[in-house]
């Protein structure tokens, strides 16, 4: 069995699937990074992903264009995130509660809307929705092993990893990023030098919604080709864990997201070895808790050393 497992891990299809599975988690985790850096915890990522996943399917089917579907998915993601912002910043709802409310909407509201649009409750069978294209990268695709691993992914998968770079540039190389970090670290200090704290928080939430929206769109227009109820299955929450373990740094968060992608891909393959499906499905979540614990323990040690 161990040999089998090693055989699987070092196969091209397995490594390929890691990138595919990591994509939605990475989008959502980057969304969590931007929000967290501006001092707003966006726990509504799960709901935003669900809403965007459905939006993408509906609009791509009605307009017969995957790109327009993606555009509307991003738009709805931004609007939903701004709604969290409105309640949290303007009406002073606890931001965690505002996020929970959005998750409720994502859970039941999507079924409601899907039923109205297609007459289905379980999944969007009646909607002829489109899928984002996969891309073969010239030259790279002809290189033996690397080609099979790195070429032929969905365009959104590539974009997710490009977003790591974009988020890094935004946070560390632009005035806006400086403001976001300032607001997150010390809102009073930022305020005192004339930064509009709420405006920055709204912007960060909006960007976070756009990223989570792309993650949602990937779920229904790439990872799968239709919308299922509950299809994100906690990825928005896993993304929060990935962000926490990645210390809200874009690159670190990418690495932890990949780690979750690896665990998930491994779990999928362990099923083919005849292990019970439920226990296999459980492993990424167990892994997350263990990872969180290890990360927390390591920071605790570091802080203690600093004190000494």
């Amino acid at each position, binding site marked *: 069995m161990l040999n089998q497992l090693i055989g699987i891990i070092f196969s091209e299809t397995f490594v390929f699937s890691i990138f595919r599975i990591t994509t939605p988690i990475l989008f959502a985790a980057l969304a969590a990074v931007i929000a967290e850096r501006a001092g707003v915890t966006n*726990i509504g990522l799960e709901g935003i992903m669900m809403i965007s996943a459905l939006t993408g399917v509906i609009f791509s089917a009605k307009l017969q264009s995957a790109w327009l579907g993606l555009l509307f998915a991003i738009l709805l993601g931004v609007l939903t995130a701004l709604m969290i912002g409105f*309640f949290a910043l*303007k*009406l*002073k*709802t*606890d931001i*965690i*509660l*505002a996020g*929970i*409310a*959005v*998750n*409720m*909407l994502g*859970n*039941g*509201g999507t*079924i*409601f809307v899907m*039923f*109205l649009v297609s007459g289905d*409750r379980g999944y969007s069978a009646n909607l002829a929705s489109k899928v984002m294209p996969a891309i073969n990268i010239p030259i790279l695709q002809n290189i033996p092993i690397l080609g099979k691993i790195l070429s032929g992914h969905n365009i959104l998968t590539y974009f997710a990893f490009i977003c790591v770079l974009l988020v890094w540039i935004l946070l560390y190389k632009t005035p806006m990023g400086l403001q976001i970090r300032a607001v997150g670290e010390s809102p009073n200090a930022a305020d005192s030098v004339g930064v509009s704290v709420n405006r920055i928080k709204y912007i960060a939430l909006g960007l976070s919604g756009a990223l989570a929206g792309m993650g949602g769109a990937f779920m229904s227009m790439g990872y799968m080709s239709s919308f299922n109820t509950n299809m994100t*299955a*906690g990825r928005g*929450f*896993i993304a*929060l*864990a990935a962000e*926490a373990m990645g210390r809200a740094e874009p690159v670190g968060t990418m690495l932890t997201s990949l780690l979750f992608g690896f665990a998930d891909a491994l779990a999928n393959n362990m099923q083919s070895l005849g292990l*019970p499906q*439920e*226990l296999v*499905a*459980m492993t990424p*979540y*167990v892994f*997350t*808790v263990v990872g*969180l*614990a290890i*990360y*927390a*323990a390591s*920071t*605790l040690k570091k802080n203690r050393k600093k004190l000494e």
Partner: protein
Amino acid sequence: MRKNLKFEIIRGAASILLALAVAMIFIFIISDVPFEALYNLIIGPFTKLRYLWLILERMIPIVFTGLGVCVMFQANQFNLAGEGTLFFGGLVAAAVAIYLPMPPVLHIIVCIVIASVVAAAAMLIPALLKTKLGASEMVSSLMLNYILLQLGVYILNWHMADRTQGATMSHLFQDTARIPTLVPRTNLSWGIIIALAMTALVALFMYRTKWGYAIRMVGQNQSFAKYSGIKVAGTIVLCQVIGGLLSGMGGAVEVLGYYDRFKWRQLPGYGWDGVTIAILAKNNPVFIPFAAFFMSYLKQGCNLMQTYTDVPAEMLSIIQAVIFLFFAAEQFLSKYRQKLVVKGAKEELAEKKAEGGQKGAEA
């Protein structure tokens, strides 16, 4: 103080009206028979006695999860594992109900106690990760939901399934373990009495014991609690363990009172409902049964609306989210509160002036 209460009531009513207005807009857009739909949603649940029993019956599990959330939120612990612990508590109770023969009544008690203890033990994971390592209880409790679900479904599928049945479900519970019905010819069990009794107990615990006091202090001002000698870490663990205990108990009572076999293969959603009603009750255990009744009434209305008209029952989640958002919004109608306070102060001043004037006249 009384003004504050009056304001809270007005604001709550405004939130509910707003949510119903949103629902109305949706209904008028999508339905061919909007008035019938509205009638079923709002008046429908009161038209038959049978519906009242249904409302009370659906209240039971969410009272337990709501109480659990109250206790944890009062200490500012955003533990969201009510969902998973309720599910797992139900499964454990079912296992004891099937495989451990015992005399009547005692059997029910043992089922509930074991389920509560196991669920409470599960809550130790996020609680200890928080106090020992400083990991966010929110993220780990969310993960715990999925872990408990998968573990539970695994146990059901591989160790408890009755293979003679078409769908995946456990064997029949022994009759000694089933919670008897309270109202004949309905599904309303004695569980509702247990739920109300637990409400009283939790209220007493929170407002009449030193542990309850410690929990509230930690929530209001952790530093103050620490310097006044309250063991903060212990209190944080305690409130989450109690939260797990309550939702595990809710799972047991629900499963033994409503079903004859264990059939859940998804998280039933009562944990999230518990968060909603805890917000409606402002984290005060005394108000939990009322909030649960209200949620359950809305659910019944939505179900009737789906049965008799063309509006899907998932409308509930939209209404629920809107109420939730406005109820939790501290600044919602704050200008109105400002006016109330100013008005009150002016009246007081006027009174004092009048009194002063009188005294002056007497002198």
